[in-house]
């Protein structure tokens, strides 16, 4: 059984790593989780992101959700922002696309232009 003592040890290890590397939150990943997003598979997209971060031991990413952002036809929508840089909004970001997104953009720092929603301003 998982115990709170085990969680305490995880915390101590993580804080020790952080002292060694001075790491903080480097990347923000936001998954749109309105009714439209969930109906299009946003929950599976988000669990796939969490699975990738866990598997690849990525420690400097904060994953959160947001509601409907008014682009329902593009759901599931995922936004990625590195540091204070520009936020890239991806459309139709299904769970199958998550490993490539995490590898190329979240970890590698290179946005995937063809999956981004083109802003027509």
């Amino acid at each position, binding site marked *: *059984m*998982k115990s*709170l003592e*085990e*969680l*305490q040890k*995880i*915390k101590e*290890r*993580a*804080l020790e790593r952080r002292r060694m590397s001075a790491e903080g*939150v480097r990347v923000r990943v936001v*998954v749109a*989780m*309105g*009714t439209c997003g*969930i*109906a299009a598979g946003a*929950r*599976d997209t*988000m*669990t796939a992101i*969490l699975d990738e*971060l*866990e*598997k*690849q*031991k*990525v*420690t400097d*990413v*904060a*994953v*959160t*959700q947001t*509601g*409907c952002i008014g682009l329902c036809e593009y759901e599931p929508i995922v936004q990625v922002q590195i540091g204070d840089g520009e936020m890239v909004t991806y459309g139709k970001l299904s769970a199958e696309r998550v490993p490539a997104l995490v590898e190329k953009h979240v970890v590698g720092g290179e946005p995937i232009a063809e999956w981004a929603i083109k802003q027509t301003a």
Partner: protein
Amino acid sequence: MTVFRELSQHLLDIFENGAKAGANLIVLNIVEDFNADRLVLELRDNGSGMPAEMVRRIADPWVTTRTTRKVGLGIPFLKQAAEMCGGEFGIESELGVGTRTWASFQHSHIDRPPLGDLVGTVLCMVVGFPMLDVLYQHTVHAATGATQEFNLDTRELRAVLGAEMSFSDPEVLGFLREMLEEGQAILYGEGTTTNAE
């Protein structure tokens, strides 16, 4: 036809309403009673609540889609799912106190969607909404008469992790996922990690 393939997607959707209402605690309560052939899903939040007039109209999709844009279609979808599976739907809310939404189902109803990926859903609730706490309570009354329970309370986890650690940490994610998988095994018997239906 339902919009969501899994009841856990409805749970995530209603959960989002509570988060938008500014709740800092959302209780997710699931009770499966195989003797009474009943499944009850309940979400309670301590958010802003709604005026009585909105509560009265909230389950009517024609009204809510037009006038209460911020609530959306999620509640009518859940009500429809419950009612087509021999169940009922209810919502109670009080301004400044919070909202309670519940839906019941005939557990064995042929049209009842499966609970689905509860591990992933609760993980999304816990990690995706860092501004609020989650209490997940799940009880299964088996046909044999045995009762199994599993609870996960992020307030207990946060007390250990402190403010400087996030649930997005890969080791914490692994801990949470394994804890939830163990919970499923307790509820449905060893060797089962998903609610296979």
